């Protein structure tokens, strides 16, 4: 006769029990997630609470772990590119670029100049889409239901533009080893030229309606102060570190592609709190638009894929390479090692969100639960890239 355990005896899983080992007397242990409206994916955070205050927080990962690094050992280099679209759906082209750039570095493949410009344009458009998604979702977390609708309105235009060359709306696998799959045709370029002034005209409205709103300011000012030294210890990059005052952007520090020829600024903020990170991302809208405009004007004619570009059965030469790009969330790094065989020997995907999230446990200590949610949103996390 089977004995059904009573609810009291089912006392939490491995991670909750491990967390509860150090629990204080009288505190409440709560699981935020893995299904939760504001954890941006399947993230679980175990918090120990004393009333409304968070005493301790521990993110638990792995709910979206698909072991891309093992897939890279089973697929050839060229076959692995679609995986890069799924690692981070927010800035898929950034991951495309990081992987393809690493392979090109390893094999010494030169990319034609027009392809470089196309890559920059599409990557920056993707960055805009990612920031719009972040902005809408962040305000949804804070209780404002409307900005996400406006953001998605803008995003629809972007997705329609990006659909023309890539064929996808979200999970792009558009870059190839040695260039890009297809050129931007006349229609696409015309639409981009239309989009830029339209997007510029939306930004003042967002500022007046949302960024200067007193309730929003009270929710994010002073919340989640991250010292630059903490960023260094945890390896946080991207808007997280630029919001803490350090102007670290791969496009300037380790420049790649045609970025040295382009004129743009790296927005930083001295505020170090959620407001600083918010301001940095909003300022990056304008910078991305600038970059796209310059690229459209400077783009030469030519091929977009190098002659003799690797086919799917291509074997990478021996050696190792590390290539980093500036993604919407931070420094996307791909480390490859190859022994000359059919598939790559080791592929390591360095996700910016991974390091940004590891800050969370330290930053959220002692804050109110509502602030912890605000901090989580300000880190701009996309869980698939953290779990890979």
């Amino acid at each position, binding site marked *: 006769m089977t004995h059904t355990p009573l*609810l009291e005896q089912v006392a939490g899983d491995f991670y909750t029990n491990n967390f509860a080992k150090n629990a204080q007397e009288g505190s409440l242990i709560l699981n935020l997630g893995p299904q939760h409206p504001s954890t941006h994916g399947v993230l679980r955070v175990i918090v120990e609470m004393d*009333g409304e205050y968070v005493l301790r927080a521990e993110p638990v990962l792995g709910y979206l772990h698909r072991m891309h690094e093992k897939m890279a050992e089973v697929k050839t280099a060229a076959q692995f590119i679609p995986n890069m679209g799924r690692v981070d759906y927010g800035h898929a082209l950034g991951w495309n670029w990081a992987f393809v750039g690493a392979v090109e570095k390893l094999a010494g493949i030169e990319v034609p100049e027009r392809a470089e410009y196309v890559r920059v344009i599409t990557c920056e458009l993707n960055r805009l889409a990612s920031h719009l998604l972040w902005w809408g979702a962040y305000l949804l977390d*804070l*209780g404002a239901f409307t900005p996400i*609708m406006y953001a998605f*309105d803008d995003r629809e235009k972007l997705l329609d533009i990006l659909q023309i060359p890539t064929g996808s709306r979200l999970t792009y696998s558009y870059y190839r080893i040695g260039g890009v799959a297809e050129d931007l045709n006349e229609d696409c370029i015309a639409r981009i030229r239309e989009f830029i002034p339209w997007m510029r005209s939306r930004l003042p409205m967002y500022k007046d309606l949302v960024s200067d709103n007193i309730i929003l300011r009270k929710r994010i000012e002073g919340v989640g102060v991250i010292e630059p030294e903490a960023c260094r210890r945890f390896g946080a990059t991207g808007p997280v570190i630029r919001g803490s005052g350090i102007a670290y952007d791969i496009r300037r520090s380790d420049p790649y592609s045609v970025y040295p020829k382009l004129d743009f600024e790296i927005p930083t903020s001295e505020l170090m709190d959620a407001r600083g990170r918010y301001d940095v991302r909003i300022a990056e809208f304008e910078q991305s638009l600038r970059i796209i405009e310059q690229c459209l004007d400077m783009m030469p004619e030519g091929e977009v894929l190098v002659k003799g570009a690797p086919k799917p059965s291509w074997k990478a030469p021996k050696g190792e390479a590390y290539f980093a790009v500036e993604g919407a969330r931070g420094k996307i790094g791909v480390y490859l090692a190859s022994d000359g065989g059919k598939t790559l020997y080791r592929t390591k995907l360095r996700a910016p969100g991974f390091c940004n999230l590891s800050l969370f446990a330290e930053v959220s200590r002692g804050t*109110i639960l*509502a602030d912890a949610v605000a901090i989580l949103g300000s880190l701009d996390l996309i869980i698939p890239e953290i779990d890979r």
Partner: protein
Amino acid sequence: MPAELIRILIGLVAVAVSVGLIGLVMVWVERKVAGHIQRRPGPFEVGPNGLLQPLADALKLVGKQLFMPDKADPILFWLAPVLSFLPVLLLFLPLPVGDGLLALDINLGLLLILAFSGLAVLSLLLGGWASNNKYGLLGAARAVSQSVAYEIPLLLSVLAVSFVAGSLNLAEVVKGQGTWPWNWNIMTQPLAFLIYMVSALGETNRAPFDLPEAESELTAGFHTEYSGMGFGLFFLAEYANMVVVCSVATALFLGGWHGPVLPGPVWFVLKVSLLMLLMVFLRWTYPRVRFDQLLNINWKWLLPLAVLNLLATSFFVKLAQTW
């Protein structure tokens, strides 16, 4: 006595019917306004322009299975939504919809309303506690501190108006106002009106003060575990509370049923609708206030201002009397 009783009974029936109707209309209005603010059409399919959508929603809610979580307390769990909805019917009785058109013409109309609206707090607490759910508990705790806190400025601002009118009977207060806006109490008590509206948002748990049901933090707060008609009753009660609060504001500050040309009840309904629309607009425009900031607003701003307002009012009333 029997005449009184009959009057109250008729009033109750009318109230029950209108609360149902109001619920239906408000659901449609809220979703349409939300849609248009968000640049989308809102409900569109069911009926012309989505007019029958609330009916579809109601049918859906009524038709759902009633179940409760395993370790929940059954009595308290099912008492909570009932307790949130039924007392609201009582709150409509002293409201003067037209000249002499009120179910309960007693001296303590305002006191009745304020007293019974306190029962809403109890229902929130029971709902969160009885769910056997940590989110529910947190939501309930928030709801209690919020409601208790915001009742005080509400009371004080209402008191200021009744000082001026000399009575707690809503019919009297309305009679004391005139036909045109410059004769309404909002002219003599603008601060009280502002304090009242903000406290009303806090009392009815409407955004930007909707922390007890903060979706993005607590999944659904105190009504996480409710579905079907349990949730439906909470929902209806929220809208009914909104109407009560706006009606009291209309009666106290905006001249009640006074107005040129059109009959009294029409003006009353128009004014209440305007205030409700304002509340709906606020919900879809502003982000949510953090909990400690919410309490700060109350204790550091609303309460001192309300006290000062009351003192000033009583001073001027006394001055006017002695003159």
